[in-house]
């Protein structure tokens, strides 16, 4: 009697063979999920880490028949803990975005015209290599700069170095975290890291000043934040806008924009005057207390009230709350710190406050990262750099990430030496750098602009050669080393094979290197080989890593100060510098000093911007799954002001800034949730690339209105919140 082949088994067998025949992307998700429900096919989970934002959450891609049908968080990854935010969940939307870059493209028109012809990889790479060689010959390798963000950095930075240039510019420094990191480094000898080492889950009081955590959806940090809220932690939020976080706060301080430093200094003043600081901690670990005390004497709450419009009693009360709950107080240093040009000093003030309350290295404050060392693989030494890097020119304290606008300036002026070529990987410069006209003009002067990206972003569509990288779900990338409480190693591996003619970043870099006779700097055959060797170096099993996605190195955690675990401060004095000797040496204020910044004239509003929990700025703007939930941004205007101006909720308005730049029409949100002197919108909308069919011209581009910027003299970062706009009703909506 032949065995009865039930319908289910039969389909399972054919399902397996069909998968082997790989007619992958043809079957729609609907059918596959139904088939899975019936038990006909089984999904396989491929661990990787996400690239929708920079948190690098460990994710598990559910693949059925060669199609990614869902993404779930990897429980082994400390940044995800088994969960993914909305954007991580929508990752497949990027993978299957029909507007993705599919083939290498070579420009056939003027820069910015958007005219391209399809080319083969050989052709495209040959063009790039030829031009790079030409620049090297005529101007020297230092004339090529790399602008980069995210995991492509791991492939293209070595290429840049091998080529002979050190001119890298990462917008994440000069347009985002730079001054924060510099300020904390000057105070504690190190910054808080990214992900930040804030011990929110154990905090008794959280102070958010300039952070809209919640809308700023950073997975594990929000998990900790929610944990703290559920446990009854107190929350103080300082924000001109009633954010999600403010909605949970016991104290919301709607501060007048640009006066945050006044508030911080007043808090320091009160805490010192009342003797609420951690005397033992300061004694043991800090320097410069008396100088600090003298310097902040004038910054009383009464004085601060005049600057910040926050009542003196509130300033006093919030300081008292901090003292009451110290040291389990988390003064969150924020992330995007490039506001008004004195941002290093503002971060210094935050650092000083953290130190006074004794929270650095304590539970509920800022925990100490793992001190476990990551062995470096032996690699070929880079050639001698023939010229001084200009990417931090004039800013001794700028980070190794370089200053993007300095490179741009050099491209425009040719001083100190010309930059003739830009390689742009994984970053949308038009949306990142202030004053778009400068970026545009600089690009016009280049001999070569090559873009490596996944989507036809605004900047990509200006390049001479566009090299399509496949998405994070289709490639290997460098091991992500996490230095939180413990040392973790995470793997990115392809869940599906690259679609169309797109290639992984490592392949592109290696192929370019070959054509530039730099092949020996990329000695491995495939990147997986390099990963394997790294694993053996780290002493972990590659097979296990492939299974789990993330491995936590045991016994690498020592987050808090204990008698046997003393902190080390990498400052000049070896202690926390309340009074910064280094700054004094460089000719800057050793203790932050308040300067008043210009406020908007009547009839104008300060433009402030932020994030949406379902978008990562322009990166996700076209993702159909995320676009659906948030297709356009709105400009928030105070309700009383709107009434005055006769503007109704939902009307479309245009914003015109002080330099006459007019924005795209944008929907007006009339709300009580914002002060009268500023307007707010989510950053990243208003793309100008026609190829992004979902996102094209939806909403307004705040970056276009950021034409005025103040450079922080210490870090070289660009303060971008000093632009004032007026509103005009749009008669017709585009």
């Amino acid at each position, binding site marked *: 009697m032949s065995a009865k082949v039930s319908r289910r088994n039969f389909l399972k067998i054919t399902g397996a063979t069909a998968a082997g025949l790989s007619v992958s992307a043809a079957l729609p998700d609907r059918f596959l999920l139904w088939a899975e429900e019936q038990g006909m096919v089984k999904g396989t989970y491929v661990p990787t880490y996400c690239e929708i934002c920079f948190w690098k959450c460990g994710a598990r891609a559910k693949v059925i028949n060669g199609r990614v049908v869902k993404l779930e968080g990897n429980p082994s990854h400390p940044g995800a803990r088994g969960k993914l935010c909305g954007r991580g969940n929508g990752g497949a939307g990027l993978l299957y975005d029909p507007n993705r870059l599919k083939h290498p493209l070579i420009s056939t028109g003027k820069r910015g015209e958007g005219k391209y012809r399809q080319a083969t990889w050989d052709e495209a790479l040959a063009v790039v290599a030829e031009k790079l060689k030409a620049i090297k010959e005529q101007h020297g390798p230092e004339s090529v700069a790399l602008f980069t963000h995210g995991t492509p950095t791991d492939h293209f930075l070595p290429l840049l170095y091998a080529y002979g240039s050190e001119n890298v510019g990462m917008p994440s420094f000069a347009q985002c975290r730079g001054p924060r990191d510099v300020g904390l480094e000057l105070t504690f000898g190190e910054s808080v890291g990214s992900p930040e080492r804030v011990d929110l889950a154990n905090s008794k009081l959280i102070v958010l000043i300039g952070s809209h955590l919640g809308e700023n959806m950073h997975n594990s940090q929000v998990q900790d934040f929610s944990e703290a809220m559920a446990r009854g932690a107190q929350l103080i939020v300082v924000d001109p806008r009633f954010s999600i976080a403010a909605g949970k706060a016991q104290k919301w301080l709607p501060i007048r924009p640009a006066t945050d430093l006044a508030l911080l200094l007043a808090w320091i003043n009160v805490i010192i005057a009342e003797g609420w600081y951690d005397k033992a901690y300061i004694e043991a670990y800090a320097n410069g207390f008396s100088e600090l005390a003298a310097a902040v004497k004038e910054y009383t709450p009464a004085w601060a009230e005049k600057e910040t419009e926050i009542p003196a009693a509130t300033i006093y009360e919030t300081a008292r709350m901090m003292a009451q709950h110290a040291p389990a107080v988390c003064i969150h240093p924020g992330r995007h710190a490039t506001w008004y040009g004195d941002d290093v000093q503002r971060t210094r003030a935050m650092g000083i406050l953290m130190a006074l309350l004794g929270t650095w290295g304590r539970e509920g404050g800022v925990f100490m990262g793992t001190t476990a060392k990551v062995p470096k693989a032996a690699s070929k030494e880079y050639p001698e750099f023939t010229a001084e890097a200009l990417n931090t020119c004039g800013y001794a304290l700028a980070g190794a990430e370089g200053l993007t606008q300095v490179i741009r300036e050099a491209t425009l002026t040719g001083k100190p030496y010309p930059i003739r070529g830009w390689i742009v990987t994984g970053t949308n410069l038009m949306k990142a750098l202030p004053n778009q006209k400068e970026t545009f003009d600089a690009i016009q002067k280049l001999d070569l602009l090559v873009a490596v990206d996944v989507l036809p972003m605004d900047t990509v569509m200006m390049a001479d050669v566009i090299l399509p990288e496949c998405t994070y779900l289709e490639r290997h990338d460098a091991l992500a080393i996490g230095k939180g409480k413990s040392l973790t190693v995470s793997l990115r591996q392809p869940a599906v094979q690259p679609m169309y003619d797109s290639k992984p970043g490592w392949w592109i870099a290696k192929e370019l290197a070959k054509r530039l006779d730099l092949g020996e700097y990329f000695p491995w055959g495939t990147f997986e080989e390099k990963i394997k060797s790294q694993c053996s170096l780290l002493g972990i099993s590659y097979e296990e890593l492939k299974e789990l996605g993330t491995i936590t190195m045991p016994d690498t955690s020592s987050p808090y100060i204990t008698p046997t675990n003393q902190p080390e401060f990498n400052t000049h004095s070896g202690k926390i510098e309340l009074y910064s000797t280094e700054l004094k040496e460089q000719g800057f204020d050793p203790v932050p000093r308040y300067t008043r910044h210009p406020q908007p004239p009547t009839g104008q509003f300060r433009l402030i911007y932020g994030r949406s929990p379902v978008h990562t700025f322009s990166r996700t703007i076209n993702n159909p799954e995320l676009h659906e*939930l*948030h297709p356009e941004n709105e400009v928030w205007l105070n309700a009383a002001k709107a009434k005055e101006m006769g503007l109704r909720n939902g009307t479309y308005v245009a914003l015109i800034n002080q330099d006459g730049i007019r924005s795209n029409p944008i929907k007006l949100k009339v*709300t*009580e*949730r914002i002060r009268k002197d500023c307007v707010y919108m989510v950053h990243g909308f208003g793309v100008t690339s026609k190829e992004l069919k979902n996102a094209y011209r939806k909403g307004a581009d705040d970056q276009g209105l950021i034409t005025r910027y103040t450079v922080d003299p210490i870090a070289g970062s660009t303060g971008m919140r000093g632009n004032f706009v007026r509103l005009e009703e749009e008669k017709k909506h585009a």
Partner: protein
Amino acid sequence: MELTITGANAITFPTLYVWDWRVSLYLFLGGLSAGLAIMTSILHVRKGGALAEGERAAISAPIYVPIILSIGMLFIFLDLERKLNVFWFYLTVQPLSPMSWGSWGLIVFYPVSIMYALATFPEGKRDLLRLPILKNWSARLSKYKLQLAGINFGMGIFIGVYTGVLLSSFVARPLWNSALLPVLFLTSAMSAGAAFMIMIAKEKKVKLYFTKIDIWLILAEMVMLPLFFYGQYTSSGAHRESIMPFFTFSHEYFWYGLGMLLLLVIFPIAVVMKFLEVKEDHEEELTPGALFKMNLSAIMVLFGGLIIRLTFVYAGQLSHLS
């Protein structure tokens, strides 16, 4: 209050919008055919059948019933999202679903009304039926005229009332959630049936007979409608809010306010007209003028019934509990 919703479905936000004029039309036509069935039964049974003698409507009315019902059912069928699944209505009985009762009721009402139409077909005119099977059945069923009249009457009441019960059973739609709604719908259905009968009847005595019936029915409606709104007004906050569209002429709710106004005008005028028609000293034959007035008042009643169905279906979906 500032409200932002992410993930709202267009079909339920900002208000529910699932049933439209097709459903209203079915409610009206279904009610009309039910009312007509009731009136037809009355026509044939009253005064031992004397009323029906020589009356053209005695033959035509029972035929109109299934025709009007068919048109109504066509519209409600068009409203279904999965029309091919319609047979599922008849593979199960859901005791707590008025829609299930209705679907079964209709499937009984339909053949009953056709049988009644055949039964009341006069012997002399049977040849008009053409098909031998029809002639056969007409002959057979004419014996059971009385019983069929009774069943028809009962079915008419059921069909006229069940739609009201259906709507009133939704706790989520406060406008409909009133015990008075089924009675209102039934009365409106019967009134429409009487009005229709008036229009198709030839004999003066029949017309006047049903005019008298209609007067009572319209008066009943004129009492019930205010009671209905008063009941809603004095019920919970959600109920009170649900009737607001009817009492405003704002841009959003213009049509409801207009509908209410029309009802306030139509019914009193119709009832007065009918009263005068009855009071008037008619000659043997009704004058064209009198006929015109009778038809006009009848059309007004029908129009009023349609307005009730349209406004209630749409306004009911605007109402919500939360």
